[in-house]
């Protein structure tokens, strides 16, 4: 019986596997050759590109920056999204579906459009700065374009929707009765959250967190449009190298390095999680 479940994975595995390997094989293959410009490469196989990318501080800095942005987005998304999802899941109100719907609707608006709106809001004479100046929170206009916080905010508009929707589903599966039972036995609200809700929703949070992390590591639009040309995360750099410089080989190489580092993080996360689960069982 148990063995049978495993087979269900096959169609997905085959589909993803073929597409992944086939497309990446074609694309990454050239990372082992030197660029000759215009997508052409020299005929000899070499690891020169990899050596260059892994040793040149410029590329490493870009990778570090990408991580920085992704982690910031991850933390903010979870910190803001989970409580919101929890409240939504526990609200016994007619408004819940509409509020959820509002989140969905906002997610359907193209990222680019939202970014345009953000550009207007961020401007020195824009609404944000004017109101903050008026309240007296700041003395000089905040500069958000071309900074990491600006990019993070832009990405948040994209990821918050996902987190809220995902965690809503997760919190749904935690029965209210469980929490109520604990309250009846005298546990404070906070205690209930900490000892019951959090551990139970943790796998969901990790899954959602990984999704957000991966999305942010691969995101191009927000960084390109809000980064003001100064926040050169790996995806932005890869795009430039590929499209502006038509140096496909080194771009493919950078993509490979980016993918591997993201993969590493995912692997680490799942290892930690398995050990935790094993530990909990034991």
């Amino acid at each position, binding site marked *: 019986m148990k063995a049978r479940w495993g087979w269900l994975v096959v169609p997905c595995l085959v589909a993803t596997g073929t597409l992944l390997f086939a497309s*990446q094989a074609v*694309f990454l293959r050239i990372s082992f050759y030197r660029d000759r410009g215009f997508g052409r490469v020299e005929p000899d196989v070499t690891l020169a590109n990899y050596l260059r990318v892994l040793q040149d501080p410029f590329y490493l800095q870009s990778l570090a920056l990408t991580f920085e942005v992704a982690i910031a987005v991850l933390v903010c998304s979870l910190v803001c999204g989970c409580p*919101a999802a929890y409240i939504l899941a526990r609200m016994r109100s007619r408004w*819940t579906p509409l509020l959820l719907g*509002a989140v969905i609707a906002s997610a359907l608006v193209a990222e680019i459009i939202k970014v345009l709106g953000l550009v207007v809001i961020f401007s020195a004479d824009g609404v944000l700065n004017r109101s903050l100046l008026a309240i007296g929170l700041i003395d000089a206009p905040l500069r958000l374009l071309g900074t990491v916080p600006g990019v993070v905010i832009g990405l948040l508009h994209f990821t918050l929707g996902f987190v809220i929707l995902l965690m809503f589903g997760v919190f749904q599966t935690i029965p209210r009765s469980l929490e109520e039972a604990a309250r009846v036995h005298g546990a404070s609200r906070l205690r209930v959250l900490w000892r019951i809700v959090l551990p139970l929703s943790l796998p969901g949070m990790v899954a959602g967190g990984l*999704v957000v992390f*991966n999305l942010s590591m691969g995101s191009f639009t927000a960084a390109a449009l809000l980064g003001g040309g100064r926040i050169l995360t790996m995806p932005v750099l890869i795009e430039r190298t590929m499209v502006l410089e038509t140096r496909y080989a080194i771009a493919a190489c950078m993509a490979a390095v980016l993918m591997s580092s993201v*993969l590493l993080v995912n692997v680490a996360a799942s290892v930690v999680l398995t050990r935790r689960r094993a530990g909990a069982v034991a």
Partner: protein
Amino acid sequence: MIALYGFLFAPLVVVAGASLAGGERPYVSFPPDRLSFEWYGRIPARYVESIGLSVLLAGATAVCALALAVPAALGLVRGRFAGREAVALFLRAPLQIPFIVVGIAFLQLYYALGAAVGINPRGRFVGLLLGHVFLTTPYALGTVTAVLQRFNRRLEEAARTLGATPWRTFRRVTLPVIMPGIYAGALYAFIVSFGEVPVALFLANPRVATFPVELFGALQFDFNPSLLAVSTLILCLSLAIIVVFQRIIGIDALLRATAGRDP
């Protein structure tokens, strides 16, 4: 909460406001100095066509992604086989590739296919669909897995001891409970497919492009508030659809799935 919604909707308010700007404005002007609905009337048919294509594509993507992800999630969460974690990781891989890399890689793949086998999916709906399904299946997988992991197996066991077949159990016990995850997965797949640019840009068809690609093209060179008007309309339309959905089917269906009570 209010702050959160305010945050999410602030740029949309700006966009909606700027869409009411009257006169020739090759930029976003907010607050608009002249209010008028003129740009709503000047939305080119091309945009509407591309929205139709995007909706169709996103819907198809969601369906296919779920078709692949639900069984896979079941297999991953309940199966016991060597390398399970590795497989899970592998299936999440598409998420880790920058969209633009996926776009160009798929384009090259399609050309290679064309050269080798004579079928080139580039520029065809299938080609776009394949690319999008590839991108979105991990999302659906993630959401369904998350919900499945929380699922209380005892519910199923109870049903089985009462004599239900595995399929019946799945359909009437498991499925309703994991519905939130499925809806969420379908939603994600739809949202990602509807809004993504790089893959569609490279795999698209000269005749009709998806809406984000149209937007992107228009934004690169030229801009007028009709773009904002269309986006605002999409927003309102989605909200309207959700209200209707709620009235008829009830997102309560989503809420009712809180069946997981401990026995």
